[in-house]
Structure formats: C-alpha cells, structure tokens
C-alpha cells in the first residue's frame, strides 16, 4: 500500500510543480546574490546569506532558511490536506476502502508517503542549491588564496570540515522533516474531517499563521514554547560549534508530541467515521 501511495504521488504533476517551485526560490536568490557582487551585511536578510558568498558549500543551509518559513509549509499543507480529503472528493476513497484497504493501513501509508515527500523535497532543495552554490560562489578555497584549507565557517566563527558540514546538514534535514511532519499531522487531521482538500490545506495554513502571529506577541509568552512553529528555526543550531542542542532537543520533543496527538486524533476520527463521500 505504501508503494501504491508513493506511485500516486510520483504520478501527480502537482507534486513535481511544488518541488520545482521549492528549488526555484533559492535559485533566484542565488542568481541575484551572485550578480550583485556584494554580500548582504551580516545579520540582515536570510540566515547564512552573508556567509555563502564566501563559500557556496554553505548555500544549502541558506536555501533551507529561505524555504522553511512559508514555502515548505505551504507545499506540505497542500499534500497533507489532499491526503484523505482529496480521495474523498474524487470518489476514490470509497473504492480504496472496499478494495479492501484497512482504514488504519491507508492512513499509515499516507503518512509514510508524506514523510518521503517532505524528505525528498528537502533533499532536492539541498542538492540543487549545493550545485548552484558551488557553481556561483565557489567552495571557499577560491576566495581565500594562500593555501587555507577549504571549508565552511560555522556560525560561531570556527571552521567546519566538509564531513562536519555534511553531518550537520543531515541533522538539519532530519530536524526539518520532523518539524514538517508535526505540522502535517495537524493538516491530516483536518483532511480526515472534511471532503475538501483545499479547505484542509487552508485550515493547516491558518494554524501556521496563528502560531507565527502568537510567536511575535509578548503577551502570548506562556504558550510560546508549545507553539508548533516555536522551534522550527532551531535547525540553525546544527551549524554552531559546538552544536547547541538545547533547543533542538526541545523542538524534537515538541514535534513528536504534535505528531502523536494529531495523527492519533486523525486515526481515531478516520477509523470511526461514516464514509458518505
């Protein structure tokens, strides 16, 4: 069933369009940066943007910082919102269920496919931005002639070896995937409650926006540590030296909580509801 779900994703033009758009945004920014010939002052613009001009190998991290706040969640919301509601409105849900595919099995396959989609989308963003970054900005060695070993500089100022950069990047990807799945869980729950894929996706985005708004509000301080987006940006801590684990740990725990609670609720709703679509 997981294979079937993955094949369905692969056969959807919409999925490819969303991944292409995700890769396009960092590409556009990279081209502008490369042609402008001057780095953004540190502390302004997206994270890492001032550093990448010196080392293109760091550009994937900058690309993730660009797509994470809005683009990636939108893509995730569209796919997650479509998961059950899309089948319901297309009339295929009832045929899948009488095929028969158990409801729990169907939902589980949807979740796995969703996780694969998020991982693959992020991986593609990383790969395309790595290629682009190296092509446009070189690998650091080029801009520091004099034999200094090639390598990125961590946010803390110390140099990173390329293997160090690789595992930090993998850690960051894993962290982002989990963050997205926490958000996807909310949208999947909405998707089991309605027959409108669009409604579910917009509902998920409404949650996202609410969370972002509260995040900027001092009066909301007591609930902030529990907002789904609160630790989203903590993957940046993978690029500190040494890695700053505290927020990463909190973030992982929080997202795991969201995943368990909302997927649990989605499962409870989906396995007991009448399919009238």
């Amino acid at each position, binding site marked *: 069933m997981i*294979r079937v779900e993955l*094949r369905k994703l692969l056969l959807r*033009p919409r999925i490819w369009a969303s991944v292409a758009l995700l890769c396009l945004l960092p590409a556009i920014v990279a081209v502008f940066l490369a042609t402008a010939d001057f780095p953004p002052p540190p502390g302004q613009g997206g994270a890492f943007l001032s550093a990448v001009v010196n080392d293109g190998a760091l550009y994937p991290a900058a690309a993730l910082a660009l797509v994470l706040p809005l683009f990636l969640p939108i893509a995730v919301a569209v796919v997650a919102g479509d998961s059950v509601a899309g089948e319901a409105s297309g009339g295929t849900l*009832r*045929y*899948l269920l009488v*095929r*028969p595919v158990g409801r729990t099995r169907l939902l589980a396959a949807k979740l796995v496919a969703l996780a694969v989609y998020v991982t693959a989308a992020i991986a593609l963003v990383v790969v395309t931005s790595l290629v682009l970054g190296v092509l446009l900005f070189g690998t650091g060695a080029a801009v520091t002639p004099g034999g200094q070993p090639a390598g990125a500089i961590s946010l803390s100022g110390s140099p990173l070896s390329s293997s160090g950069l690789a595992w930090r990047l993998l850690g960051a990807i894993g962290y982002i995937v989990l963050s997205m799945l926490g958000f996807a869980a909310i949208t999947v729950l909405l998707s089991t409650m309605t027959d409108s894929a669009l409604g579910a996706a917009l509902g998920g985005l409404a949650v996202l926006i609410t969370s972002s708004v509260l995040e900027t509000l001092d009066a909301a301080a007591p609930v902030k540590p529990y907002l789904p987006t609160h630790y989203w940006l903590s993957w940046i801590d993978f690029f500190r030296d040494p890695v700053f684990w505290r927020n990463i740990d909190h973030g992982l725990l929080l997202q795991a909580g969201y995943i368990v609670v909302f997927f649990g609720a989605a499962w409870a709703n989906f396995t007991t509801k*009448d399919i*009238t679509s």
Partner: protein
Amino acid sequence: MIVTHALTKRFGRTLAVDAVDLHVGAGDRYGLLGPNGSGKTTLVRMMLGLVYATSGDIEILGRPVPKRIADVLPDVGALMEGPGAYAHLSGRRNLALLDAAGPRGDRRTRRRRIDEALDRVGLATVDQRPVKTYSLGMRQRLGLAGALLRRPRLLILDEPTNGLDPQGIKEIRELLIELNEDGTTVFLSSHLLAEIEQLCTRAGIVDRGRLVIEDELTALRAATGRVLVATPDAAHAAAVLDGQLESRDGDRLVIWHDDPAALNARLVEAGVRVRSIHAERRTLEQVVLDATGPGSDRFGEPE
C-alpha cells in the same frame, strides 16, 4: 449471501434506514428499488463497511459485517454511486493502482485481468487518455471493470446504469445476466423500475428507510385474476359472460377469470371469435406505487 436483521441507521435526527430485514440468496439477481432519498445508498454503504449501522446486524457471505469486513470484501465487487478514478491518469493505470492496493491483486496476472475486465465492459480499445476526458458512460464502465477485476462471487452495485445511454444500459444488463449465469450473485439498487423488471429475479422495495416488500419478481408480478380479451363479437361475448365482465371498451373486454385457456374454450364454444386473450399481470410499477408514497426528495407533499 446478504442477510440483514433489524438494520437501522440514524444520521443525527434523520432516520435513513429503519429496521430493514433483507435476504439475498446465492445466485439471485436482486434489485433494491426505491425512490431517491429512500435509504438505498446508506443500506449499500453499510453492507460494504463504509457506514456504521446504528443498530442491527449484517451478514455477508456468511460473515458478520463490519466485524469481519476484511474477509468479506475480497470476494465482493462494488460500484457505489458513480465511479471514482484519478482523473489525471489513464483508465488502465487507475485499475492497476486499485488492483495493487489490496489483497489478491497478483501482479503477474494483473495485465491480463485488466484487459479481460476492460473487454467485458466494452472498453477493450481504450487508449492512454486520462480519465478526465472520459464521458460519464465510459467512467461508469471503468468503475464496473474495477469491480470485476478479481472475479467476485458477489457484485454490489449502487445505481450501475447512471449516465449510460440506452445501448449501454442494454449491454450492462446482458453482462450482468451473463455473470450471474456463471455463478455471480448480483445485488443492485436502482430507482428505475424498468431496469429491475428486465434484469432481476428478486426484488425488494424500500420507501423512507423501510423495506416494504421483498419477494420473487414472478410473485410480485402475479396474475391479478383478470383476463384481457379482444374480439370483434364484443357484444355477444358480453352477453355470454354476464356477471364476470368487469369492463368493456369497444372490442376489448376485461373479465374476472383465473384461467385464460378455459375462458377461451367457453367463448369459442359460444361462437365468439377471439382475436387475443391473455391473463393480466400486475406491473412492477403498480406494485411500487401501491407500496410507496411520494418520493422523499419532494417536500411539502401531504403524507
């Protein structure tokens, strides 16, 4: 094959299905007839485990539903209220995905089974066009092909001829009869009298959630005890049959009599020339109209 006992479903304050006792035997071609909104679809969905009953029991292929639905459904082919397909994919691709999704979808035989099913429903020459370019009739045929992919023992079809033209309806009817003669039990719901009358051996009639009649079609269409006679000697015949004559319209007579053969012999003996004679049968339409009220998608009608 299908037995329900006191099956009831309530949606909020609406009683959709009310204490239905249904019996479909092996080898039947069973037609569930009822006006729109009478609960046919809800009944079908409860049999397939999509909608959970409020109370009552369902048994399909000898197993309780929805408790052992996973054992039942592999032997059931279903078409529910129109086909469902991924519109951006071709018909073949849709069938392949559906087949791969569940049990008994053997990959090695998949291609052959898909070809056979498409051939049976008259889509043998269908090409790689996406389903969104199909006509409603083609989609309906595709849905039926999906139901036939794994040679089910029981077919449950909700309004199977929706969207088909008269030629298509005839083809589907012949296909269903052929499948039935090969041993498949066919259960279908419809609001079309003619469809049930031409196809089914057994019928149940639902009205406002209740099963009002269930019987063999031949019993439902039993003789009324009247014989229709046409004769050029109408006045003479009327005189001979005085007392048994119910009505006369020109050269056509309606006569109370159980046996057309005996009646014919008596008329000929009396010198009446008989042009035609046959026993009157109730039409299914009369049965239905007697058994049901107005369609429940009409509002404001007096009960």
